[in-house]
């Protein structure tokens, strides 16, 4: 279930999380319209969480009025971002993945942000998807940005607003 804030301001938990993010992802969060449905969730690194997270992304995509193919693209790309984080970030298990999705204040785009605080010790190209997950994100989203530093990895996905979205 996605939520919305009465006054549209950035909720404290989301604000705290965004301050540790790279610039682009932080901007996405501060520019988000919190009076519209948004999604903010943290999950342990367990592939068994993906089903629930995908259903939440789909529900949110419905709530912000995305059309069917856009909804599918958003769910697919978000799943790849979450899967990548789960596969690579925490070789020893443990740790959290954060999922954020919202529309921007000017209603020009929707964004999905996935961040982890892991180490990504396994090279990207050696995943189960053989780098396919990155290719998919790049092709599914209008903008795909992956930022990796000592704090962890952050993926930003952007879809420009279309039709009634």
């Amino acid at each position, binding site marked *: 279930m996605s939520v919305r804030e009465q006054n549209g301001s950035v909720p404290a938990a989301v604000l705290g999380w965004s301050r540790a993010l790279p610039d682009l992802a932080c901007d996405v969060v501060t520019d988000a319209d919190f009076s519209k449905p948004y999604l903010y969730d943290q999950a342990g690194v367990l592939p068994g*969480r993906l089903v629930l997270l995908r259903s939440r992304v789909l529900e949110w995509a419905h709530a912000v009025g995305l059309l069917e193919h856009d909804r599918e693209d958003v769910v697919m790309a978000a799943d790849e971002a979450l*899967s990548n984080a789960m596969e690579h970030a925490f070789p020893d298990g443990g740790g959290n993945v954060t999922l954020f999705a919202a529309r921007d204040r000017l209603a020009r785009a929707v964004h999905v942000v996935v961040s982890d605080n892991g180490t990504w010790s396994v090279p990207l190209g050696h995943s189960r998807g053989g780098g396919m997950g990155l290719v998919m994100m790049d092709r599914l989203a209008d903008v795909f940005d992956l930022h990796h530093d000592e704090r962890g990895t952050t993926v930003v996905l952007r879809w420009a607003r279309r039709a009634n979205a």
Partner: protein
Amino acid sequence: MKPPRAASERRPADPHEVLTVRTTSDQADIVVVAAAGEVDLLTTPLLEQALDTALRPGSPPVVVDLSRVTFFAAAGIRALLVATAAGPRRRLPIVASPDVLRLLRIAGVDKQLTVRDTLADAMRHLTMSEAERPTYGNDSRR
């Protein structure tokens, strides 16, 4: 509105609840590996295990039926590419639902795989000899 419970407070899904993979054989001695449900990071190992078993050397020809797959992630695409590379050339026809086919096209791998719309078409692909086999769109040079 009350915020939903965090995903981490819920019980993680069991792979068998998310994807069912069944291996069956028909009179023509064709093995069908049929998946129903969602193929993701959690469930891809179920599909991989079934394909590994079905594609053991000397075993009968195999069809992968994904017509009842509603979600297909990159991990699943990788499993199909590995299985196709392991088997005899062009001998692993895949029945794709429209959703799966759309994904394979976005990934750009539909030409590397032998994709058919129906199980009957996929089986026909196996029962035809090499010479009889028509050159479908995804088999031919572009």
